[in-house]
């Protein structure tokens, strides 16, 4: 018995005894799939909201702190009595 014949025999064996599909399968799958979709949508919205909040917070902080301005030098002594 060569490889092809053996595989054909196993294939025939595997094809036997097909069980009927339970009728509630489609409904269950749709219900679960809808729940998955809703969860993913919720997660995406929350992540977007967090990203937007982070952008706004950074903008407010930057407008207040001006991180791009060089801080005044603190090594030069103040000029007094000049």
């Amino acid at each position: 018995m060569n490889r092809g014949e053996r595989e054909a025999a196993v294939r025939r064996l595997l094809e036997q005894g097909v069980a009927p599909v339970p009728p509630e399968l489609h409904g269950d799958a749709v219900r679960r799939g809808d729940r998955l979709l809703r969860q993913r949508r919720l997660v995406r919205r929350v992540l977007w909201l967090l990203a937007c909040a982070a952008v706004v917070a950074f903008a407010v902080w930057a407008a207040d702190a001006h991180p791009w301005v060089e801080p005044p030098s603190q090594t030069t002594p103040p000029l007094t009595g000049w």
Partner: protein
Amino acid sequence: MRDRQAARDARRAREFEAFVAGAAGRLLHAAMLLTAEAPDAGPRARRLLTLALAHTYARWDRLRGEDPYDCARQYLATRFARTTWHRYGAFGRARPDPRSPLAALAPRERLVLVLRLYEGVAEEQTAALLGLPAERVHTICDRATATVLHPDRPAAPRPVNPGTALS
């Protein structure tokens, strides 16, 4: 915007129903072979298939020309591989039913045999899906074929087999 969403939902529901009507029988049989349960009652196979179909349903709008059957089969296979790994040696692991044709095989042998011979997936694709080298898939498939065809022969060519501890 809302109209378009509703139309898309309706189309997805219609297409998915047609897909399930056409593919559920074959996928359910594949799942039953994987779990090796009794032909008349297969709670694990049914659960596995429901999860795979739900995953396909959730991905339906983003399939972009990909075959939904492929998607469901892939999810079925990877999910089965993962759950058997988690249940390895644990309580509550279902024992194979002797009426199933693949009851004598280890879960991984069943997985390879079903993918290769029942579903006709190419060796390289099976290997990529399971994360194994192609030669290993070839070996497992040969060994599983021999075990299925000659179950009474002593298991001489199976020196190191996780299945003996598993089944």
